C-alpha cells in the first residue's frame, strides 16, 4: 500500500514535470504572449519593456529553468493577463467547474444506474432496447450542439431556465458554491445536464453490461438458491459487484468531465476553470495554462489514487501493493 502510494506519487511528479516542459515549449512555439496582450497603440519601447517584464526576452531553456526554480519554491508565476498568481486564479475558478462536474456526475449516476440496471435485467424488453438505443444517441451527439439546443428550447423558447452564467454563490468550506439557492440550481441545471449526457450514456451502458455479466455468475445463482428476494439479489449482490468497474470508470471520467467542461462552460458562460483555460490559451497566458494543467493532472492523479483505494474497498480481492503495472 505504502509502496503503491509512493510509486504513484513518483509517477505523478514525473508526469507533472513532463507536462510543464511540454506546455512550456508549446506555448513558446505558438507565439509571443506580448504580441497578443499588448495594445495595438504600443510602441516598440513598450513592447520591449513588456517582453522583459514577462521574462520573454530570454531563451526558452533559461525561461524554463527559471520557471522550474520558482515552481520548486511553490510559485508557478503570475498570470500575464490577470496579474495575480496563476495557481490562485485556477483555484478561484475550480470550484465552479467542480460543482458543475459533480452535479453532472450525480445526474449521470442517478439516472444512468437505474436505467442500466433495468436494461440489464430485461435486455429483451422494449424498454431495455429503447434505453440502449437512447444511450447510443447520448454517445453520438456532440456536446456543444446539445448545449445549444438546450438553450434554444429551455431558455429561449420556453423561458424556464437562464441561458448562461452562474447563480448566486455562497461559501462553504472556502468554496464558492451555488448549490444553496433555487436561483443557483436554475443556472446549474442546463449546463450540468449538457455535461452529463455523455457520461449518462456511458454509465447506462456500463451498468447494463455489468448487470448482464453478473447475472450469469454463480454467486448470483447461489444467492437465489439461498432464497433471497430478487430485490436483495439485485440490490446487494449484483449492484455491489458492478459498482467496482463503474466506480473506476466514473472516477476516471470525472477527470475527463472536468476537462470537457471547457466546452460546456464556453457555451453556457459558466465561470469555471475550463473557460479560463480556453481563454488563457487564446491569450497565451502561459502561467495560467501551465498552472491549470498541472493542477488538473495533479487532480487526475489524486483521483486515480482514490479510485484505486476505493477499488480495494469495494473489491476486497484487490491488493494495492502488487499493482505492478
Amino acid at each position: 500500500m505504502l509502496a503503491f502510494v509512493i510509486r504513484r506519487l513518483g509517477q505523478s511528479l514525473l508526469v507533472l514535470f513532463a507536462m510543464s516542459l511540454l506546455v512550456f515549449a508549446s506555448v513558446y512555439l505558438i507565439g509571443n504572449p506580448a504580441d497578443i496582450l499588448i495594445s495595438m497603440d504600443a510602441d516598440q519601447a513598450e513592447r520591449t519593456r513588456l517582453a522583459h517584464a514577462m521574462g520573454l526576452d530570454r531563451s526558452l531553456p533559461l525561461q524554463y529553468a527559471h520557471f522550474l526554480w520558482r515552481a520548486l519554491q511553490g510559485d508557478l508565476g503570475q498570470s500575464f493577463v490577470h496579474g495575480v498568481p496563476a495557481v490562485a486564479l485556477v483555484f478561484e475558478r475550480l470550484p465552479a467547474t467542480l460543482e458543475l462536474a459533480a452535479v453532472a456526475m450525480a445526474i449521470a449516476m442517478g439516472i444512468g444506474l437505474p436505467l442500466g440496471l433495468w436494461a440489464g435485467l430485461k435486455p429483451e424488453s422494449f424498454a431495455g432496447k429503447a434505453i440502449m438505443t437512447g444511450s447510443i444517441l447520448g454517445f453520438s451527439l456532440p456536446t456543444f450542439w446539445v448545449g445549444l439546443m438546450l438553450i434554444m428550447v429551455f431558455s429561449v423558447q420556453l423561458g424556464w431556465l437562464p441561458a448562461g452564467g452562474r447563480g448566486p454563490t455562497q461559501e462553504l468550506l472556502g468554496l464558492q458554491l451555488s448549490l444553496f439557492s433555487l436561483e443557483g440550481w436554475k443556472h446549474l441545471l442546463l449546463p450540468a445536464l449538457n455535461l452529463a449526457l455523455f457520461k449518462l450514456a456511458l454509465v447506462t451502458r456500463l451498468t447494463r453490461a455489468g448487470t448482464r455479466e453478473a447475472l450469469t455468475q454463480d454467486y448470483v445463482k447461489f444467492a437465489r438458491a439461498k432464497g433471497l428476494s430478487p430485490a436483495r439479489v439485485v440490490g446487494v449482490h449484483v449492484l455491489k459487484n458492478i459498482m467496482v468497474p463503474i466506480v473506476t470508470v466514473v472516477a476516471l471520467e470525472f477527470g475527463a468531465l472536468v476537462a470537457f467542461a471547457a466546452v460546456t462552460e464556453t457555451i453556457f458562460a459558466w465561470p469555471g476553470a475550463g473557460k479560463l483555460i480556453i481563454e488563457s490559451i487564446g491569450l497565451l497566458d502561459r502561467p495560467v495554462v501551465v498552472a491549470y494543467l498541472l493542477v488538473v493532472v495533479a487532480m487526475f492523479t489524486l483521483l486515480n489514487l482514490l479510485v484505486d483505494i476505493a477499488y480495494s474497498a469495494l473489491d476486497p480481492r484487490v491488493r494495492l501493493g502488487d499493482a505492478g503495472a
Partner: protein
Amino acid sequence: MSTQFATLGEGAEVPALPVPKPAADAAPVESPLRLFLRQYAESKIALIGAALLLLLALAALLAPVLASQNPYDLAQLDILDARLPPGSHAAEAGRLYLLGTDEQGRDMLSAMLYGLRISLAIGIVATVAALSLGSTLGLLAAYAGGRLDAFLMRVVDIQLSFPAILLALVLITVLQPGVGNVALALVAVQWAYYARTVRAAALVERKKEYIEAAQGLGLSGARIVFRHLLPNCLPPVIVVAALQVANAIALEATLSFLGIGVPITEPSLGLMIANGQQSLLAGQYWMSVYPGLLLLATILAINLVADQLRDVLNPRLSRQ
C-alpha cells in the same frame, strides 16, 4: 471379462481408432468470417446500421461525383447565394440548392458530402494510425516485458492522465489547424488507449497454452507475436476502435467548435455544425441542422455496428 466388453477392449488395439463422425459434420464448414457474418446478421438494427454506414461511406467516397458543386473551390462559390434556404435557386446559373447554402454560398448538400468525406477520413485515418501505433507498442510492451514495458506504460500513464481534449487543443494550437494536424492530434490523444488495451489483452493471451505450444514448437519470436498473439489481441481493440472512429469524429467537431479544427475552406461536418450554429438563433437552421443530422446518422451507424461487433467478437460469447 464379458464378451461384450471384449469387442470394446480388444477392438481398440487394432489401429482402427474409430474415427468419430461427429454431429459437427452435418453443419457446413464455417469459416470465422462466415460465422461472424451470420452472427452479425442476427440483429436487425445492426444490419440497418451497417447498411447505413455503407451508404454513408459510399456517399463520402463518391462525393466528387455526386456533388453538384466543388465546395472547396472558391471560384465556384458566389457570395450572392449566401444563406439561401433549402430549395432556393441560385441568383445567376439558376441551379437548385436542395438543402440551402451556407454563409459563403456553398451548396449545403455538396458541402455535406465533402464534409462527410473529411470527417470520416479524419476519424478513420486517426483511428487506424492510433490503432497501429498503439497496438504495436502495447504488444511490444507485453511481449518484451521488463524495462521496455515499464517505460512504455509510464508514457501511457502520462498520456492518459492528460485530458484528451486539452491535449488536442494545445497540440493543434502549436501545429496550426489543418486536416493532417487534427488527425495527428487525434492519434496523439488515442494511441495510449490501444497500447494499454492491447497490452492487457496480450498479457492474458500470452499466458494461454497455445502460445506456450508455439514456443515449444521452436517458432521464432516475431512469428509468435504477429501470427499468434496479435490476431488474438485485436478483437477487443477493434471494437474499441470502431467506437473511437465515432469519438474521433465528435472530437474533431468539438475542436472545430473551439475554432481550431479543419480549415474553414474545407469544412468537415463538425465545422459546418459549429459555424452553422451561429445562424440557429436567426432561424437559418439548415446550416447547422442538416450537417448535424448527417453527423448524427454517421456516428449512430458506427456505434450500431461497433455495438454488434462487440457482441459478436466478445470472446465469452464466441466460444459457444
